[in-house]
């Protein structure tokens, strides 16, 4: 097919000045290209507007971690590994452990990220996950106490993005929750300021404990496209970069909301938010089924 071929200027009103192949058009006018799809109710990757990408969850993938999970959300792949270490508690909370989630968006997963310390997006996602875990009291930090005022467990929750294709928050939160449910820590013994765990025999229910999770918040994100604020569920990288704003709804298994955020784009009606909450409810059920099938 010819690119940039001028048509004969016979009827200027009816014929476009140039014809492009689809991929050229996509590169030159990404938004207009996308708009053409959206007006037909589909997206370039074949999904419907409210469709989420195929999701898989695998737990226990990293044997050097106390708990781990790998989540694939279409082209986005994240691995969450949790390591438990012993630390001194804070003076004002002598019986509480630490839960420290951090997201790493390395230059390996996308050219959008630079090497070096975490960029803005990584920091913002880390903060959002940290807030959901703390504010909706997913884990009672008192369960992580070994000896009051002396020693507590620190759960280093590190999320590594292997491949980035949008919607990192949903994928990261799902991997954190799956990994937390997968954590096994050997029963500690405290004597004279030293924490010991028994090694040797294989890890089992007798010599280790699991974490008691009060709830499992899972999020569903939607990009807001164009001034019409068309909702695009589970945006991929290309959709994220051409959309103006985002709505994220985090919901737990008891149908309680854990976080709602609407950022960017123009003002959206409350009906639009309700629509998001309804869709998020369905989606989190589906995702929960995928996670429990593991």
């Amino acid at each position, binding site marked *: 097919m010819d690119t940039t071929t001028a048509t004969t200027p016979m009827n200027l009103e009816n014929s476009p000045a140039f014809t492009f192949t689809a991929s050229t058009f996509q590169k030159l006018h990404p938004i207009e290209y996308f708009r053409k799809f959206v007006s037909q109710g589909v997206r370039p990757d074949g999904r419907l507007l409210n469709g989420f990408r195929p999701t898989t969850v695998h737990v226990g993938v990293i044997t050097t971690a106390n708990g781990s999970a790998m989540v694939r959300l279409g082209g986005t792949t994240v691995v969450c590994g949790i390591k438990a*270490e012993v*630390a001194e508690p804070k003076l004002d909370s002598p019986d509480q452990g630490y839960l420290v989630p951090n997201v790493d968006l390395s230059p390996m997963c996308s050219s959008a990220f630079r090497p070096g310390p975490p960029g803005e997006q990584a920091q913002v996602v880390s903060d959002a996950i940290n807030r959901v875990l703390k504010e909706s009291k997913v884990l009672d930090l008192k369960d992580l106490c070994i000896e009051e005022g002396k020693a507590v467990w620190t759960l280093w929750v590190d999320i590594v993005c292997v491949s*980035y294709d949008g919607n990192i928050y949903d994928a990261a939160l799902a991997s954190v929750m799956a990994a937390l449910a997968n954590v096994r820590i050997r029963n500690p013994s405290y004597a004279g300021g030293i924490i010991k765990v028994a090694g040797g025999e294989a890890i089992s229910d007798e010599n280790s404990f699991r974490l008691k999770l009060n709830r499992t918040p899972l999020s569903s994100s939607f990009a807001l496209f164009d001034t019409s604020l068309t909702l695009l569920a589970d945006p991929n990288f290309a959709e994220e970069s051409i959309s103006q704003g985002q709505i994220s709804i985090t919901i737990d298994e008891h149908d309680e909301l854990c976080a709602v955020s609407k950022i960017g784009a123009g003002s959206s009606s409350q009906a639009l938010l309700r629509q998001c909450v309804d869709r998020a409810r369905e989606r989190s059920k589906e995702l929960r089924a995928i996670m429990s099938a593991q």
Partner: protein
Amino acid sequence: MDRKRVPGPELSVAPLVEYPIDHERWTPQQEKRHDPKRQPEDLRPIYLKTGLISQASGSAYIELENTKLACGVYGPRPVKKIGQGFSGMGVLNCDFKFATFACVKRRNNTRQDPQEKELSQILSQALAPAVRLELLPKSVIDVYITVLESDGWGSCLAAAITAASVALAHAGIEMLDLVAGCSASYMQIGPSISSTTTETSSSSGAGNPITPQIQIFMDADTEEEKYEQGAIVLAYMPSLNEVTHLLQNGKAEGPIINQSVEHCMEACNKVYAVMHHALLESMKESKDA
């Protein structure tokens, strides 16, 4: 204090692991490998797949049982840094990174540690001779490696070399040949090796020193590395029959080193078949798509 991460406690340590007295640990004296199913010359089964990272020009994921790492290649792209001057040759930039949970001991990832820096350099030295950088002036190729889990230092580096060259090929970058990586460790199978013939040898062993027998274990895991006397990591281009990088550490006699290099070259040929297969698969997939 790191201000760009969620703060945790200033200091945290892994708990002490206490083994029961009757706990039997693996030692090389048992003449068997840590994984009893493997013979000394056996590599672990390799799983290699391309195209995992959707945004990268080329990518590969490799798994040797518990050694798991991902590699993403970006480029060739123009040199970003202004003032680096004109370069007639392309630059191959490698970045090797361990996930914090990749090793038995947690790695604090606030800064690139010296080991990561060293491995990055080795990687770029091992790959550069294979890549036709002279065809890519004013450009840079970025190779990023993230180790998700490491089971053996040498095998990790070898896997990174293998994965990176497959990822480079997947990115369509011209190369002279694929580079396969392989590691080998020398283990001292002590005098107690002949414990089956018992008394005589052990009593004579106390009297006059017997030269310890050295066994070469291919693709050693973490547990075996604890007892190694030395190790080599070889990067080798099987079709050209050329070595691009050889890393040797520890003490060993000349013949042992020669022998292990030969072993590694043989193993690299096996790895090469796996790399070939992975690339052919990716060709098929892109044809179907």
